[in-house]
């Protein structure tokens, strides 16, 4: 299993559009991806789960991936989280 801590870049946190972009990418990864904030861990492919974490700008979250190409998947998803989707 590979893990990485990422700081959320989107100005308004992981709500609405950024959450939707992220969860769809996680769902496409083809391997189980978990997202953890504090004590709570959710399935990263679940928009309801991700939203329920209430992730804000500058929060640190932990991505964990288990399976083939876990580092490549981590790279891709971590890049999404460290992009400011609200800046567009």
């Amino acid at each position, binding site marked *: 299993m590979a893990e990485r801590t990422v700081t959320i870049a989107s100005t308004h946190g992981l709500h609405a559009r950024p959450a*939707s972009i992220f969860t769809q990418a996680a769902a496409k990864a083809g391997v189980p991806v978990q997202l953890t904030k504090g004590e709570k861990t*959710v399935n990263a492919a*679940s928009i309801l789960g991700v939203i329920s974490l209430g992730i804000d700008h500058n929060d640190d979250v932990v991505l964990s991936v288990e399976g083939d190409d876990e580092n490549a998947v981590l790279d891709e998803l971590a890049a999404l989280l460290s992009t400011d989707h609200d800046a567009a």
Partner: protein
Amino acid sequence: MTFTGVGIGRGMAMGTVLQMPAPLPEPQDAPSALSVDAEKERAAVALAATAAGIRARGERAGGSAKDVLEAQAFMAEDPTLSDDVKARLETGKTAERAVFEAFASFRDLLVSMGGYMGERATDLDDVSQRVVAQLQGVEAPGVPDPDHQFVLVARDLAPADTALLNLDKVLGLITSDGGPTSHTAILAREKSIVAVVGVAGALDIPNGTTVIVDASTGAVTVDPDEDARFKAKIAIQERASLAKAPAGPGRLADDTAIPLLANLGSSGGAAEAVELGAEGVGLFRTEFLFLDSAQAPTVAEQQSQYSALFAAFPGKKVVVRALDAGADKPLSFLNDAPEENPALGLRGLRALRANEQILRDQLTAIRNAEAENTAEVWVMAPMVSTLEETRYFTSIAREVGLKTAGVMIEVPSSALLADRILVDADFASIGTNDLTQYTLAADRLLGSVASFQDPWHPAVLRLVGEVGKAGAALGKPVGICGEAAADPLLAVVLVGLGATSLSMSPAALADVRAELRLYTIEQAQHFAELALKANSAMEARAAVSASASS
């Protein structure tokens, strides 16, 4: 057989009735007679089928509806939701109950998060109902979406229903409840849908029955004979060719110019408004720039949006309203303190004043965008209630370099003192929806007091008349930018009361333009007198209608 209600606009439609299915009752929390695995299978199949069904509707609808529906399909497929449903099934619940509870718990979570996510709660409710309907093998509740055109009959439509309504399929709307200012009526005016509201007995018309909906008389003819059908067809064709006629400027029969302007909520609707003959923009709502964001947009971000709108109206008037937010449309950076009475709270100009930099930034962005274009830009403040507030706003606007600064008249106090407010303000624009709400002390969002929300009420019209008189005495323009201006006959009354321009949803322009041409200013003033003398909104409407058709 003929039913009657209140017609919205002037249109006519003929088609077959489709009743909107009633919402499903909450599934009972009784133990399942099936095994846990069997219920899990039922739930999984129903969730997948619902997601597929929603996605297929999205493909058919296209456009922004497709995005909304795609998001709903993801909710039905959500793995966290599915885990939650399974956990509830382990305790021996039925699939219906488990699905209902799982969606309800996420709904509550979203509502507690507030803002944009809170608004998605209605989407979850809709998906939940669809899954439960799938499980029970009954028709999905909510807006029907058949593959043919139809006349929709409903008790009343909620905003969530209308967002999903496929307008290409809807020939007309009939509601059993709701008055001329209900959400259904507002939608009908905005989108120019033929509608008759408040039709007692409408819910008993069987699906598939042919009806003629005549908004100009408020009549709904059920199962019309050949002769009536023929006449309706001719009338519908005549109206269609009239609508295609080139749109000129707004004028009365005596050639008095009454500019007809558009209400817009984003720069996106500008092209359509121009096509429909809008002579400018009478109300540009700027809230869209601020919603769904944790902080106010920068001056540069705002400027590009304003500039895009101004560019669509070269040399024409564009009235921009400063941000209008309050506890009923909370913005975290402006005012998110809960209030008991949001309509009477820190909202409109009051909220901006408590955050003056936001107001200054917005006005600066508007001035910068004005400099890049030839549009004649006016700015106005929302919910102004005193002379002192008027001076506050106009002085900042002028300091920033804006030439024309006015106020919205939505509060009775400012209508009553319009003769003083208009000494300072360059113009007034009457927001009839809020003016009605505040005059009759009836929450415009509360269904139980919806009958009070009628701009034909003589108390409201008397206040409009005060503003009209003040404008005429001081030589200052008085515009109308509420829903009232989109009601063709009421528009004539408002002109009679002294309105010098009318602003409305672009779809309503054609009917109002045609109506204005029928009357002189003297006739409009006579209608205004009749309406002011009436004892109620209903009497006012009846008196003017009778005089207009005599």
